[in-house]
């Protein structure tokens, strides 16, 4: 406690050493407020802007949103309570079912992105010449604005676009494939974009984890005669398990909440085949101004997110004997 208060710069009455005690006496002498009370007031003064902004733009949305989901509300008039009506409306909307199904289907990218990121992190976890350049190249998609990502991949996927041109040039296909215009393919095409955008981000997290593995652990495994493959599965993977858990949860949540790719590239089409849970909420709220329905839909998505995060923790938590 004493060490703690010393670190925090709190004059500790009674046994405070030198300068702190001096301030304490001086403040009393000048007749100011008691230092602790004064410091507390100043602390709240410093915190006020951040707390106010967090309250209005982070906590209020969660609270007010959960209430509005049970009301009828058109912004200009006060909300009226309608109970579960908005949720019943969701159940009557086939597009909502497609949205939830697509959001769940989107989860297939989670293992792909995690495995890819781990492999990339292992590949760049060394000091080969030029390795920093490769790290930067892998991270580039992360610092590219999603609107430009959408435009670029639109060109890649175009019927006359690059991917079809390459495949035709290689004589893999004869007719161009409608990557975004075929309702059976469009969602998978979007998944590839999400994968492309996310790989570098997770790679950096795994790289940090790999670099924190103590050298002697690796060396001991080498001395024991473990080959590369064994070292990867028996040493590396168990050592970075906490990061794997964290990244899996993060990427599961962001896969459930995919929105921008859909908004920019397909707007839910063709024939509602690429609606995701959050795109449905966006579409209902921002385009159709049906905020209660949008918030009800996003609540359903949140419930799925919480459930899936819980499952992740349950099954991926490192087991101790």
């Amino acid at each position, binding site marked *: 406690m004493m060490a703690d208060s010393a670190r925090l710069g709190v004059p500790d009455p009674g046994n405070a050493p030198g300068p702190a005690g001096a301030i304490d006496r001086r403040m009393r002498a000048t007749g100011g407020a008691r230092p602790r009370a004064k410091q507390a007031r100043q602390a709240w003064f410093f915190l006020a802007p951040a707390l106010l902004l967090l309250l209005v733009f982070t906590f209020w949305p969660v609270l007010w949103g959960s209430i509005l989901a049970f009301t009828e509300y058109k912004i200009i008039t006060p909300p009226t309570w309608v109970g579960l009506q908005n949720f019943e409306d969701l159940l009557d909307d086939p597009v909502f079912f497609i949205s939830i199904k697509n959001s769940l289907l989107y989860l297939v990218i989670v293992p792909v992105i995690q495995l890819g990121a781990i492999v990339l992190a292992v590949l760049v976890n060394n000091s080969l010449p030029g390795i920093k350049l490769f790290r930067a190249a892998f991270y580039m998609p992360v610092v590219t604005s999603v609107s430009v990502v959408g435009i670029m991949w639109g*060109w890649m996927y175009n019927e006359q676009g690059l991917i079809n041109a390459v495949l035709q040039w290689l004589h893999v296909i004869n007719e161009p494939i409608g990557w975004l215009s075929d309702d059976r393919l469009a969602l998978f095409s979007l998944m590839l974009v999400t994968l492309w955008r996310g790989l570098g981000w997770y790679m950096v997290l795994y790289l940090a984890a790999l670099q924190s593995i103590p050298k002697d652990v690796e060396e001991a495994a080498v001395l024991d005669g473990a080959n590369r493959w064994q070292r990867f599965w028996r040493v590396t993977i168990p050592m970075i398990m906490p990061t794997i858990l964290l990244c899996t949860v993060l990427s599961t949540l962001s896969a459930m909440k995919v929105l921008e790719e859909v908004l920019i590239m397909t707007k839910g089409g063709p024939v509602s085949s690429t609606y995701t849970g959050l795109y449905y909420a966006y579409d209902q709220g921002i385009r159709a101004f049906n905020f209660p329905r949008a918030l009800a839909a996003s609540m359903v998505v949140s419930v799925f997110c919480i459930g899936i995060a819980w499952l992740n923790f349950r099954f991926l938590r490192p087991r101790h004997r």
Partner: protein
Amino acid sequence: MNAATANLRRRASTTLHYTVLVAVALLCAFPLLWTLSAAIGTEGNVFAFPSSLLPQRVSLANFIEVFRVVDLGRYFFNSIWITFWTVVWTVLVCSLAAYPLARLHFRGRRLVFAVILATLMLPTEINFLVNFITTTHLRLVNTYAGVILPTLAGAIGIFIMKNAFEEIPQDLLDAARVDGASELHIFFRIMLPLALPQIGALVILTTVTSWNNFLWPSVVLTKSNLMPLAVGILELSGTFGSSTRVIAAGAILTVAPALIVFFFAQRFFMRGMEGAIK
């Protein structure tokens, strides 16, 4: 196994290693490289493969044309303006909040810290719906303030600054207090100058995030003359008569500033990410 074959094996393994690295790097960079090639080229079918990969006639005509098709200069100005004020206010708001959390003693400090930590677990992606309602009521729709305000107070920024302030020696604060310096004076004259490296990291992270931010600005700004590049570029691609090459030029101008900042400040990203996770 003699030394020669061991050497050969090591070489083969390094070659394979580089081959995989180059292949993945090409996959990551390909869309950007192709867009660049489309933007600086002027002739031929832009989608033809492989001839479109290397532009035959290099010129900056598309970059000039794009300013004629849409008011790209306006978008550029909006992006710079929004990013600049977002960075200034983010650094100020986050470090103001971080100072008492790191160095002052007051009742409720732990609670405040827990509350800020909790924002990382809230489903904030959905906040844009209610935030749109809030900004409508505050009459901030179609204003820069409406774009900037919700992004300022972030747990990550506060944590970066809190860690920075915790490293500053206590003696400096004690000495200042003995001299009768106010907490504000200590904050501006001692804490901020000594936390410059971390402020730099926060500035860079915020610059790139703000410059690339798309969803919230696109929700709160409906007037074209207020949009930042990341939103305006979609107006350009939806404009009748804008060719692929002209849009490509606009796309390059949109991503270039963020990529340049990234390449020059790479280690901040890597370190900032680690700091955010710990």
